[in-house]
């Protein structure tokens, strides 16, 4: 038992460093960019221009329909064959951005479509422009509806970043593997890695709960 605790204490700084240097920044950067991509893809999908609708559908189909691991391999190991060589970081950001963006785009589309038609008619009769309707009626409600599933997309993203070791990045899991390989204590190390993910997950869940509460203040209290 003492040995296990010692091992954890010794390895923790390295693991935390990898978490702070790779896992967390990669998750944050990819998630922010994914939200931008998702908004653009949703706007294209719900707009009136047919060709943009198809591009958006194709994008979502492509990235939801293939494993993130395959996407990482194609971008990092495959693209150099056609002269596009990207760093491991850039590859990871691109893959996770577009992968999470595809899921988030589906989430946003479903949220927008769940706004009752009558409200859109009310916006029309009040002579609001499409942009004003989006800005003041649709987006605030759609965002509230989208928050729980978007939170789940973020959590999936954080856990998914454990795959970046395959393209040479040293995230928390990769560093855990390296330490386990030198001290032959895989169970101890991998449990430690798992605990670090659980801590991140717990923090994100707490934030998610608070944000949802703050954004749903207009909902009848008996339904909340």
């Amino acid at each position: 038992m003492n040995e296990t605790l010692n091992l954890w204490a010794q390895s923790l700084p390295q693991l935390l460093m990898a978490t702070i240097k790779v896992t967390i920044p990669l998750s944050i950067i990819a998630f922010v960019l994914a939200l931008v991509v998702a908004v653009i893809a949703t706007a294209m999908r719900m707009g009136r221009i047919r060709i943009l609708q198809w591009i958006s559908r194709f994008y979502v189909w492509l990235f939801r329909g293939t494993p993130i691991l395959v996407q990482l391999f194609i971008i990092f190991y495959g693209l150099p064959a056609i002269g596009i060589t990207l760093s491991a970081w850039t590859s990871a950001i691109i893959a996770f951005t577009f992968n999470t963006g595809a899921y988030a785009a589906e989430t946003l589309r479903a949220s927008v479509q769940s706004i009752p038609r009558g409200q859109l008619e009310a916006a029309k009769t009040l002579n609001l422009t499409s942009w004003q309707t989006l800005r003041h009626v649709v987006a605030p409600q759609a965002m509230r509806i989208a928050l729980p599933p978007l939170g789940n997309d973020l959590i999936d993203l954080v856990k998914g970043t454990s795959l970046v070791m395959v393209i040479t990045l040293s995230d928390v899991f990769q560093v855990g593997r390296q330490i386990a390989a030198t001290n032959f204590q895989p169970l101890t190390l991998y449990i430690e890695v798992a605990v670090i993910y659980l801590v991140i997950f717990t923090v994100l869940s707490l934030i998610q709960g608070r944000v949802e509460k703050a954004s749903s203040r207009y909902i009848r209290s008996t339904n909340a």
Partner: protein
Amino acid sequence: MLELKNVSKSFGDNTVLDDVDLQVREGETTVILGPSGSGKSTLLRVMDLLEVPESGSLRINEDGVEFGSTLSDSRIRSIRKHSAMVFQGYNLFPNQSVLKNVSLPPVLNGKLSAAEAESRARELLGKVGLGDRLNEYPDNLSGGQQQRVAIARVLAIAPDYLLFDEPTSALDPELEAEVIKVLVDLAEEKRSLVVVTHNIQFAKKVADRVLFLDNGSIGFDGSPDEFFASSNERIRRYLTTFEVA
């Protein structure tokens, strides 16, 4: 003057409005009656361009439009500024407080500053008896209260014509009464109202003019007294449906 000429509208094979001609005069309460499926709501929605007919024309005051070709959003909005609709289902924006529901549209329309719109909204909400519910959200109000907010909301943008699409059909009788009272006040102020309703008493007491719609055509156009005394068989049959209790 709001004028429809030769307006026809179909949904698939179903002809809902069949070559309708109609003029709504300013300062009058025009009540549209008729059996279910006769095209009442569609007729009202055409006046606000929430439905665009296949043919005919609409003219409101100095602005007019010919149907038959695609209308741009800006064209639709330029006509629609003359009218506003109150819906059966209220359709308030649940993410905005009662005050905001009423004060925001005139600001977005560029008609009032935020401060002017707010004081106007307070005044209008007071008028419909909701001066003490300004900071509530719509979901916390009764149906009758929500509908009164919806009425204040259209009054805030000051359209020439106020259109009511079965405004009390979703309400219990006592809640209906509080909404009807607001409508009666508006009629007494000589606002231009067009009301689709099943409330025969309202038509009898408040209407300046009754239109009876039957199978997509106007089957009667005249005063309430003439309407309720009519010997027309379709009208008699329609009116007897309200007598059965």
